[in-house]
């Protein structure tokens, strides 16, 4: 067999010149994607990475008490530390007092162990009266807690630069004195309930969206075009309407003097002075979210049902199946891709929902997103907000990954 290479017109082997052209095309495609890719890397992916970093970053206190942590490093934690540790602590606190920045360490230390707040405040106040030498004695004189081993152990425990304590807090766990992981105190266990509620609401919203969307998607897919287009507007109009408008209409509907309560009273299901609370609890969140997310279930279901030929059902019936059997054995299995796509989409959207639960949910109907927003805007515990956000993100990305495997991300249909 001839092994002679085929040459292109300018004398270069065809294989090489083809490869070159391929490379050029590849480069061209990559260059087109590059602007958006780089834009997103800088303004989106990197900030999300930064958020992840923030959730485990615990360097602030090490930076603010540098001498103390160098001195306390060698301490074994059994007996009270020696003089140099206290001397270093004095030096650090004196500097913080001068720059008026000790507020931050109070919050951090008090988080590690209650009681630090008053301890630091009192010590800083009396710092001016300290005399040189024998700091250990003076510290203990100012506040007896400086003579208690557990406070110094707690101080030493804050030394590592990285900490996953916020993640533990996110699932109602914490470190005890000896760095063992234990349950949070009974009255502080609120996050597990919140996670469960978020999952529960997302799950039931998905189920109800499916139950409501399936019949109407079938109707839309089987009606003649001129009717189905008209009905499609009923789906698209809410889909395109502002989320806040839809939420506010639910606030109007569900309020105590609202039309739904009027109807309940009129039907005699409740007395006029005992109108049920439909809003500011989990019912409100659930009902409003179901209506708002319904189009996201209808659209993928509809686009799948549209492709199923009606003759398949007729064939099933002509072969002796009852309509029910034909539906169960033929139609339903063919719609499963649509069900999968719609359900995953609704679940992903529901699990991170913020606006609607914040407005109609009240305290008992708020979800994990609302807690993240609370820590971002009110309690200003940003690292905890970042930790909760990261946990939610991991959950969503897992579902996204499944969605991508099952449905394919480029199969998302819009409208």
């Amino acid at each position, binding site marked *: 067999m001839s092994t002679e290479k085929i040459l292109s017109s300018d004398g270069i082997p065809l294989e090489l010149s083809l490869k070159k052209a*391929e490379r050029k*095309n*590849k480069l*061209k495609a*990559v*260059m*087109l*994607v590059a*602007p*958006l*890719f780089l834009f997103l890397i800088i*303004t*989106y992916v*990197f900030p*999300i990475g930064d*958020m992840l970093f*923030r959730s485990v970053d615990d360097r602030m206190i090490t930076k603010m008490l540098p001498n103390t942590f160098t001195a306390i490093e060698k301490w074994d934690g059994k007996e009270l530390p020696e003089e140099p540790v206290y001397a270093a602590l004095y030096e650090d606190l004196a500097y913080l007092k001068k720059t008026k920045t000790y507020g931050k360490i109070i919050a951090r230390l008090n988080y590690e162990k209650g009681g630090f707040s008053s301890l630091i405040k009192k010590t800083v106040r009396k710092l001016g009266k300290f005399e040189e030498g024998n700091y250990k004695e003076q510290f203990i004189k100012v506040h007896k807690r400086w003579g208690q081993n557990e406070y110094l152990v707690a101080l030493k425990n804050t030394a590592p630069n990285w900490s996953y304590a916020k993640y533990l807090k996110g699932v109602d766990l914490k470190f005890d004195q000896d760095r063992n992981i234990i349950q949070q105190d009974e009255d502080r266990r609120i996050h597990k309930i919140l996670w469960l509620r978020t999952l529960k609401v997302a799950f039931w919203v998905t189920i109800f969206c499916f139950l*409501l*969307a399936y019949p*109407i998607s079938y109707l839309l897919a089987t*009606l003649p075009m001129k009717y189905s287009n008209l009905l499609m*507007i*009923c789906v698209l*109009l*809410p889909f*395109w*309407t*502002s*989320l*806040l*408008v*839809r*939420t*506010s*209409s639910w*606030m*109007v*509907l569900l*309020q105590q*003097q*609202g*039309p739904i309560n*009027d109807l309940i009273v009129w039907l005699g299901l409740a007395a006029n002075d005992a109108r049920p609370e439909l809003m500011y609890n989990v019912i409100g969140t659930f009902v409003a979210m179901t209506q708002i997310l*319904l189009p996201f279930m209808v659209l993928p279901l509809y686009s799948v049902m549209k492709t199923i030929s009606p003759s398949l059902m007729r064939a099933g019936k002509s072969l002796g199946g009852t309509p029910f059997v034909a539906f169960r054995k033929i139609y339903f299995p063919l719609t499963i891709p649509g069900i999968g796509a719609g359900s995953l989409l609704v679940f992903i959207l529901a699990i991170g929902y*913020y606006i609607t639960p914040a*407005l109609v949910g009240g305290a008992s109907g708020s979800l994990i997103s609302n807690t*993240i*927003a609370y820590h*971002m*805007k009110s309690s200003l515990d940003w690292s905890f907000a970042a930790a909760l*956000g990261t946990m*939610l993100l991991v959950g*969503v*990305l897992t579902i996204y990954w499944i969605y*991508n495997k099952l449905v394919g*991300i*480029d199969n*998302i249909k*819009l*409208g």
Partner: protein
Amino acid sequence: MSLPNYTSWNYRVWHYTYLTICALVFFFLIAPLFIILPLSFNAEQYMHFSKGMLALDPDAFSLRWYEDMIYGTKNPWGLAAKNSIIIAFFATIGSTILGTVAALGLSSRHMPYKAAFMALLISPMIVPLIISGTAIFFFMAKVGLAATHTGIILAHIILGTPFVVITVTATLTGFDHSVTRAAASLGSNPVNTFMKITLPLILPGVISGALFAFVTSFDEVVVVLFLAGLENTTIPIQMWVGLREQLSPTIMAVATCLIVMCPLLLPLYNSYV
């Protein structure tokens, strides 16, 4: 749907039950939107129907909340509307350009790691807004763009591009690449080919993507809540503030305006997609 004469009685019952269920679901979808319209004409400062309204007494209706919306003292809606339009306009342009160009690359058969890139470029649509908001806020604060229009526009470009990428790639799947080769062989440069051949062909996808990007930006609250200062307030922010503090009929008037705006977008969308 009329049924043939031979259908059994059983099936008939089932059929009409089914239609009733569908009617109820459609009602559930669409009715809440319409509850707002009459309430925005309420003469009283209540968010529920007064007796006069139910009796269709003309005195029970008024335009005072629309007046309040436009001429009210310390009226935030004018500034909010201006900001919303400016932000949505620039965000739409940004997302449409970046998204369309990226979609062209993604649809090329030479693009390596297509699925991975696609998953990344779509991710702002999937990641919960509260997380995007948190992350973008940290970033904008770091680079000094928090509480600026630029910062909000950039954030909305991030959120809008996935829609453009999806709609444009969808139009490009049926795209016949030989037409661009034909143009090139006839001596057209790539830019000219894009403007004269490719763009007109993928225009429906681009327009519907742009529409999505516009609506996303115009309706976005969560990220703006983190980023906006008093100067950057938008319509959704004002609604959010209003809904949290007190339900005033002025909000219903604004909501009515937004609902009326929507059917104006629908035909535009439908005629292209």
